[in-house]
């Protein structure tokens, strides 16, 4: 790795900000690193639960509890990692050393997560699950936090930073579906346990290679200027900013909606008895949701984000209820088509909370003069991890309630038949359960009052205040000249 490039203080700041620092290969290799990380995330989030229950034969309740504990632990890890990074001083930078030393263990743990281990007792399997998953959480944090922070220090040119972040985020979203494509192809030729093992090996071997390529090219050119916010400060802010609190509560409850995508692999495996159909259930929905995401800026101009969120949530729930009543006895492509339509509003539901978060920032700045982006988005990120934890726990608990049968490892490729009650339960987890429970996300938003005339007035006051500050700054500069 090359050393951190330092910038002379006598250099003109304007020319530094406009100069191009990143070459095409920087964009390509960093994007590949991000692709690798997102592919691992997509693999673990999409397939680890079914691997633990349907291949290793661990009871869903045990797995769900492990996920809940692990992800809450993981959510608390990130700020600690942020502190470690901040205190790191090496000639290679703050973040690249962690990526360098963490990439190979990250690949190894990905492979270990999906090994169809044999010969262990029930207790042994549970211990193995805990050790590997917690290790994955820890190593994932060691690699993930610096990876997220690296673009911010890769170039003093703000346009370049925005560009590398945007490209890598889009590619990252696509990468999360790479496991889906791999699964849909491999399941045609291999048994389930070997499919997951192969996916783990392929992604686990490629991930460190891509990550190392990324960090060898992308250098840290500027030190991070902002001190990461403390989580305790975040909770204090939540209590004071009630508008932000109502938004976060709504977002916390949104994990019910994610049951749909999490249950899709169970639907294709145990209702339609064809794992390769997963791509037809997941991909069209991802496309329709992406299309609605693109409509967000235009709709934002005409409607309040709160209105858009509530209407889209109701539309999504109604569409899922329709799928439930059409039933699981219809041909799979009818269900897949209806689900693609049901997922259309989800793109908007995912995007508009960011607009609402910005409204809470404007509201707080208008009220107190302070703007807390760091805390706001740190809390939103923590919320994401906690929601993910609840989603896996609820899914696992529902599978246990609906009597999901786990295999006996002493019988080769044991796949016990799932009862009709279980199949109906899986279909409910895919449709009516998220449809009804998702509506509770609207309740906290009834207390969210930042819309319409009120936000227009807030923005007008802020615009006036910023203009006055700019005018004052110009006057001071003129006097100095």
């Amino acid at each position, binding site marked *: 790795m090359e050393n951190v490039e330092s910038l002379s203080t006598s250099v003109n700041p304007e020319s530094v900000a406009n100069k191009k620092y990143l070459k095409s290969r920087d964009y390509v290799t960093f994007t590949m690193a991000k692709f690798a990380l997102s592919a691992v995330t997509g693999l673990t989030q999409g397939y680890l639960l079914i691997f633990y229950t349907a291949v290793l*034969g*661990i*009871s869903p309740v*045990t797995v769900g*509890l*492990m996920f809940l*504990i692990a992800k809450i*632990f993981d959510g608390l890890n990130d700020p600690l990692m942020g502190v470690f990074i901040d205190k790191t001083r090496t000639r290679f930078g703050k973040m690249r050393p962690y990526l360098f030393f963490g990439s190979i263990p990250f690949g190894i743990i990905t492979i270990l997560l999906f090994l169809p281990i044999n010969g262990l*007792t*029930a*207790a*042994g*399997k*549970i*211990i193995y699950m*805990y*050790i590997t998953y*917690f290790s994955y959480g820890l190593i994932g944090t060691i690699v993930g936090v610096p990876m997220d922070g690296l673009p911010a220090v890769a170039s003093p040119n703000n346009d370049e930073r925005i560009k590398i972040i945007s490209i890598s985020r889009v590619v990252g979203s696509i990468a999360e579906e790479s496991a889906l494509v791999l699964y849909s192809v491999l399941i045609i030729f291999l048994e389930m346990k070997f499919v997951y093992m192969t996916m783990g090996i392929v992604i686990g071997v490629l991930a460190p290679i891509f990550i190392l390529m990324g960090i060898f090219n992308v250098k840290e050119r500027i030190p991070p200027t902002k001190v990461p916010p403390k989580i305790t400060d975040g909770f204090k802010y939540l209590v004071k900013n009630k508008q932000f609190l109502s938004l976060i509560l709504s977002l916390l409850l949104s994990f019910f909606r994610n049951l749909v995508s999490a249950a899709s692999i169970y639907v294709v495996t145990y209702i339609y008895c064809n794992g390769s159909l997963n791509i037809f259930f997941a991909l069209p929905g991802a496309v329709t949701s992406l299309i609605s995401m693109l409509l967000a800026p235009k709709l934002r101009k005409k409607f309040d984000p709160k209105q858009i969120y509530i209407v889209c949530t109701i539309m999504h729930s109604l569409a899922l209820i329709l799928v439930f009543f059409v039933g699981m006895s219809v041909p799979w492509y009818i269900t897949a088509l209806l689900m693609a339509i049901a997922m259309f509003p989800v793109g908007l539901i995912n995007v508009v909370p960011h607009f609402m978060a910005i409204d809470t920032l404007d509201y707080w700045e208008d009220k107190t003069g302070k703007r807390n982006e760091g805390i706001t988005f740190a809390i939103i990120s923590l919320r994401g991890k906690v929601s993910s934890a609840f989603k896996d726990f609820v899914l696992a608990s529902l599978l246990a*309630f609906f*009597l999901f*049968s*786990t295999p*006996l*490892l*002493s*019988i*080769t*490729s*044991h796949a*016990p*038949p799932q*009862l*009709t*009650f279980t199949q109906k339960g899986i279909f409910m987890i895919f449709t009516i359960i998220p449809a009804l429970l998702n509506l509770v996300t609207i309740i906290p938003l009834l207390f969210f009052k930042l819309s319409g005339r009120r936000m227009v007035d807030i923005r007008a006051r802020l615009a006036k205040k910023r203009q006055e500050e700019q005018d004052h700054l110009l006057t001071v500069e003129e006097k100095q000249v």
Partner: protein
Amino acid sequence: MNRKIVVAFTLIMLILLVFLNACTVSQEKYESKLDTQGGKYTDNYNKIISTLDNEEVYSYTLEASEATIINFDKKNQLMPSEMEPKEDSLWDRPYYQYEYTKIGKDYKAKIKYFETKKAEGGKPEYSDSQKKNSLYQDEKNIEYSYIAGIFTVKNSDGVIYTGLESEFNIEIEPPFSNIGYGDILRRLCNDINRSATTSITMRKWFSETVAVLVEYYVLEEELVNPYRNSAFATGYSEDLQFKWESIKGTMYQTYSYTSKKNKLTFFEFHKELYSSNKKESFVVWSNQNETKWQGNLTSKSSYTVNIKYPTSKSPIVFD
């Protein structure tokens, strides 16, 4: 210093949680709990079946399917993939549907039977190269009824026969069973063996109760032995293991029934046979073949029974 204490405390709590989750109950407690639950399961089931005994009018639909690997070498215990020359597993998958209606002492039954198409040598035919989709012959159907004291049989050609009571065994074995609920449902209930049970669960789902029972048997030379009584099965619950080299196979059975307001509305039964077989694999470090014994699925059958009772909006009539 505080941070180190917090980290140490968190790690200790995590380790404790792992071990708490990994702890399993002893075999004695596990089997004792199953015996108690088994009693509740069969008592409840017998109560529901007795209610059905007193019903004058009901109908049910039975869907049954079977699947068997016909080219499994039972004598040498070899899967088709281990034979010389290697073969694909040939699954034979017939299925049938049975509709039964009872109104007082009269009843009517319709059976539709779907047999697989066979090529030369009795090999099933498939529509795909992976042999996942079987080809079927034209459906065979038969109807018989006992109405106003007259027993009639109507075969696929539409010809109606009477006076066949003595020749047409009403209680014949599957696939042409007259299951006036008593046959399969009672027989299966009576066949439940506590020594074979590995799990029993009962669930309340709104106004319904769902009960599930799982059994394992060991197929020894001349005996089908519940796993608890077999010398070739060790462990319990998820740790149940079998000595494959000493047995013919294991049988997995699961029964599930659903009741609503103490009336049986749904019954489900699955049986799977995992045959013991040997597999040769080359071991690199010893430079020789090693024989490994394992259990693979070689046949399975499933029955689901949906029972309907008359309501004011949906009376039950003979069609």
